[in-house]
């Protein structure tokens, strides 16, 4: 009877014994739920990969500039060893607008030796460089050097997921799939090259830069296909240590399955 007659009024300091007990139990229960939630949500996360974005450690790299299909710098690592570093802009933009100043001053940069200071992004053997200031690009040798011509590898049918390489190779974790899809669409729309990350057992590569059938860059047309398991067909070429794939965007087949590119 006493328990039933307990009545809590918020602006009074008195709490009945039963009410006090119930309140304490609820608080302990709620904190227990939070603790259980923190342990479950903290423990059961997919592990992020060791991709890296050196956002607070700028690096200066020099190499031969290659414009098509997407801006790259072919950097000499040792005698006969080169790495093609894909160039990107700040935020969700490609590198082209940062290269405009120097192109206006020096003309065609293709095959010329540039030095660029930027922030490296790297994972699984691939390296990219984010440029955040056009003033950090300088021409170190205006003489056109030989650069590698594309090597035709033939037609391929590949499955995988189209990503933006900036996020995928280090800026975001995870930089793929449904959660990241909108961001990837903005990046590719802003000029970052689309990359197919394969999930099949092809013998060439895990990564393919995508172009249209003529080898030109594609951005807006490919947006509806980003971040979803897909099947692509096209002519593959090798450019240094990157592969490119010429595709007809309208022929991309979306696959009804879970992403498995990691």
């Amino acid at each position, binding site marked *: 009877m006493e328990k*039933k*007659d*307990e*009545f*809590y*009024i*918020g*602006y*009074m*300091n008195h*709490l009945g014994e*039963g*009410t006090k*007990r*119930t*309140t304490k139990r*609820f*608080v302990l229960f*709620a*904190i227990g*739920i*939070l*603790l*259980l*939630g*923190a*342990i*479950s*949500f*903290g*423990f*059961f*996360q*997919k*592990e*992020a*990969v*060791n*991709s890296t974005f050196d956002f607070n450690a700028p690096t200066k790299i020099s190499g031969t500039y290659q414009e098509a299909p997407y801006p790259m710098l072919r950097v000499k690592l040792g005698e006969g060893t080169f790495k093609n570093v894909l160039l990107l802009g700040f*935020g*969700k*933009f490609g590198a082209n607008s940062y290269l405009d100043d120097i192109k206006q001053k020096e003309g065609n940069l293709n095959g010329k030796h540039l030095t660029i200071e930027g922030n490296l992004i790297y994972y699984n053997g691939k390296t990219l460089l984010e440029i955040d200031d056009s003033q950090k690009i300088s021409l170190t040798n205006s003489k056109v050097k030989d650069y590698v011509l594309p090597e035709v590898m033939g037609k391929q049918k590949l499955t995988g997921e189209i990503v933006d390489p900036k996020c995928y190779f280090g800026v*975001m*974790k*995870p930089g793929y*799939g*449904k*959660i*990241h*899809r*909108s*961001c990837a*669409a*903005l*990046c590719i*729309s*802003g000029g970052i090259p689309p990359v197919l990350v394969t999930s099949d057992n092809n013998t060439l590569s895990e990564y393919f830069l995508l172009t249209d059938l003529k080898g030109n860059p594609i951005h807006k047309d490919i947006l*509806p296909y980003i971040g*979803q398991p897909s099947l692509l067909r096209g002519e593959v070429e090798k450019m240094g240590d990157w592969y490119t794939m010429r595709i007809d965007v309208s022929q991309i087949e979306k696959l009804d399955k879970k*992403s498995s590119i990691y």
Partner: protein
Amino acid sequence: MGLDYKLVLWNKHKKTYDKIIALGMLLYLVVFVALTLALNPETTAETMIIRAFGSLAILMLHIILVIGPLSRLNPQFLPILYNRRHLGVSMFLAALVHGAFSIIQFHTLGDVNPIYAIITSNMDYGSLTNFPFQVLGFLALLILFYMASTSHDFFLKNLSPKIWKGLHMMVYLAYGLILMHVFLGAFQQETSPFTIGIIIVGFITVTSLHLITAFKESKIDKFNSEKNSEGWLEVCEVDEIPNDRAKIFTVGNERVAIFKYEGKLSAIHNVCKHQGGPLGEGKIVDGCVTCPWHGYQYLPHNGQSPPPFTEKVATYELRLNGKKVYINPNGFEEGTEVQPVTC
């Protein structure tokens, strides 16, 4: 009560309650971050913040949503209900951190406005699995923002309790949007049955408690009694009403609370003018009907808040025939004095 907002906002219990909220949130964040750093060291700080605050907000929302029905089922939960607003605002702040970091991370620094980008960067609105889940989270955040920013008696008074309460019921819309945001977003990639299971159990708990409460209340609404020749309704026997307490009946389309106190019976409209609290679940304290939700008071014989307060509810006429209590279903104007029936 309604004249001085500070009276309702701060007291010893509220301060303790706020400290517990802060401690609980801190505990969650520390455990989540520690586990993430230990088990998933390659993750980025932004991802960790987005996940920590998003998961914290959804758990807090579940805790908030069970308080209402628990208080209806057992009045001993009322101290939690009384202080629920601070929990709601804290949950909004957690959701805001999640939303702000997500928008900055995924939608800024692009070639379009970030808000426009939320809506347009994924246009698969016709697909369920590819649906742009960010839009759902953004809409929920707007609702939570509206609710948190009006979570003060100033807005309650100015918007009118009915509109205020009605608009704050949008929390259920926000909850639905958040569930879809999580199931069509994070759970498409983070597929652990444990984390998904927690949210499913939470949903079942929230839904079940609301259904049980609704079932209990529907029994009141199903009350049916024949009118006598004068149009009065027999409602119960006088012994069924405990002292200083009430029984609630649906008379016509209105819920009415019949109180027994000091050997008398009085009937007033069941809905408190403050936030629509069930007066019939309250108690007579210092001679006044006291609302269980926030302690608003009304004199039982005239439905008026004691001076200087001005709230009024409708009153009803009662009759006693032996032990049987009868009510005139036609209520009086709010605040009309009615002679109590002696029992």
